[in-house]
């Protein structure tokens, strides 16, 4: 009885965890991981440039448009 209840609880928790992980994967990564990676890389480089005293606010919007273009090109091909 206790074992079956524990098994059910574990299965439900695992399902919930998988659904949670899938939600965040879909939210952040979506159908093309390269765009999320490009955004993360652009923000990291922006921060590095900023700490080195270089004006870098222009980098993320530029990287976003370039990554979107590359993603659309890949889908088209």
């Amino acid at each position, binding site marked *: 009885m206790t074992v079956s209840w524990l098994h059910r609880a574990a299965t439900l928790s695992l399902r919930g965890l998988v659904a949670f992980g899938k*939600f965040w994967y*879909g*939210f*952040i*990564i*979506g*159908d*093309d991981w390269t*765009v*999320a990676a490009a*955004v*993360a890389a652009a*923000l990291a480089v*922006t*921060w590095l440039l*900023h700490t080195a005293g270089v004006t*870098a*606010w222009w980098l*993320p*919007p530029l990287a*976003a*448009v370039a*990554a*979107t*273009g590359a*993603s*659309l090109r890949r*889908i*088209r091909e």
Partner: protein
Amino acid sequence: MINPAVFATTFLAAAVEIIEMVIIVVGVGTIRGWRSTLIGAASGLVILAALILALGMTLTLVPIGVLRLVVGSLLFVFGLQWLRKGIRRVAANGFRGMGERNATDDDIPTHGMDWTAWLLAFKGVLLEGLEVTIIVVTFGAAARAFPTAALAAAAALVVIGGAGALARRAVERIPRSALQLLVGTLLSAFGTFWAVEGLGIAWPGADLAIIALAAWYILAAAAHIGHLRRHARQPTSQDKLAHASAR
């Protein structure tokens, strides 16, 4: 006694943040449905109220920079997903689909909670609400007119929120493909702005940079749509091969 200078300053400063909050809620609600979006917005307000009650005047100690970076980065990547989808739909079908929910929006659940809409509205309301609260605390404490500052922020919320509710009908008349493109553009613009601000970098023109960012993403989207349409009109090498073999 109301301090007119504190009222006007707080009203305008809070209005800027509340406009951003309302744009996100109206845009997400129109595209993904109102129920989950409004529950998300209400959840954000509840958490905000709890934070205000728990922290009071020490709310200014909340690491708003980290919050901006996290919320901004998430909105940034999610906004770009919608921007890509919007570009592809407008390039393929033009500005169609007025009113009805697009059949290809298969990630929107037909029943139960739409957690994506909930999260977008929740984050927008929580972050912007927190910024409004910090404005109230800062302006109110600086001028020793906390009730006036709180009243001004509440008035801004009522006025901008009411305008958002009225704008809802007009927004719903925008074709869905164009709306997805527009909301993707706005989410990307807000996301870029907050993420970069979260890194401790100030934008030239402060909040006006959001408008410049939205214009930048609209121009980029127009260029991508034009490129996709031109390419769609050109026969691919496979088309040419099929045509030759048919002859």
